């Protein structure tokens, strides 16, 4: 085969992706790859990307109470805690860690700016400390709520209320668990 005819072959080939498109897609991929590491380290984004909560867990993880403290610091962000804002109720001794009934109530009139925007519930010694977030509005008559949670070992349950004004309240309750759940 002649040299010129050999190179003509490549000119006629039509690639499915152009060179420009390939470069742009590589740029996007590198951005996502880089940003995912930042999410994991907690440098950008909310505290709820910690420990890869958004991905499917396919391995057993040991609890890390230091990371739970970091998540709480990310929520409060150095604001002063208001006294008697939120009241958390839980049993002192829970025989079954799979079903622990808890309930909370927030002291506020639900008018104007005086309502809780978000209420977080965390268990410090669980491998995945965040349990639930509740987003209230003016139309929900009072911020009373009851739910059942899982606990692996006896630890503190924390409820944090973020009001619409920007103020923060916190309440803690220690629960003894005899048989832990596997969460």
């Amino acid at each position, binding site marked *: 085969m002649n040299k010129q005819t050999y190179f003509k072959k490549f000119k006629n080939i039509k690639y499915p992706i152009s060179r420009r498109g390939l470069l742009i897609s590589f740029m996007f991929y590198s951005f996502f790859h880089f940003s995912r590491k930042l999410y994991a380290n907690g440098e950008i984004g909310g505290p709820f990307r910690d420990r890869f*909560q958004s991905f*499917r*867990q*396919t*391995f*057993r*993880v040991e609890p890390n109470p230091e990371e739970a403290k970091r998540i709480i610091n990310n929520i409060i962000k150095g604001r002063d805690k208001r006294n008697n804002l939120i009241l958390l109720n839980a049993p002192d001794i829970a025989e079954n860690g*799979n*079903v*622990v009934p808890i309930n909370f109530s927030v002291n506020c009139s*639900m008018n104007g700016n005086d309502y809780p925007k978000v209420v977080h519930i965390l*268990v410090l010694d*669980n*491998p*995945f*400390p*965040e*349990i*639930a*977030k*509740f*987003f*209230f*509005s003016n*139309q*929900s*008559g*009072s*911020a*009373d*709520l*009851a*739910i*059942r*949670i*899982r606990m692996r070992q006896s630890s503190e349950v924390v409820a944090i209320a973020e009001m619409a004004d920007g103020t923060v309240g916190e309440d803690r309750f220690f629960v003894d668990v005899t048989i832990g*759940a*596997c*969460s």
Partner: protein
Amino acid sequence: MARKNYRRRLKAPLTAKKGEVITIKTMAEHTMEPGVRRDPKTGLIYPRFIIDSVIVRYNGKQIFRSRWYSGVSENPYMSFKIKVEESGLLEIEWIDDYKQSTFKRSVINVLDNNGNEIFPIRLSEPSQSENLQ
């Protein structure tokens, strides 16, 4: 077996007074797999399968929302409160980890002090009737 994870329950009062705060009890029959449990015989890990979020709407307007993670117990029960000013349709939506949504609805009749029902749309108001003519 698959049918079991999509059964939902909702308990709400049929009638209420104007401006009353009513409690609503919900329960979803669901095996909230945390993604950590193993099969004892084969040793395989069951993948995570949980209810992600619950959205509450009254007359089409979103009034309450909650986001759940793997720490919520199986067959999750939740009771909360809402304030009603006029009768309407209450609907609750549970969304799965795989973005499959299930609904449960109920109608609440809100009564006046005289015993008359307060409708969300009032055709008897003079401003609306003038516009129609």
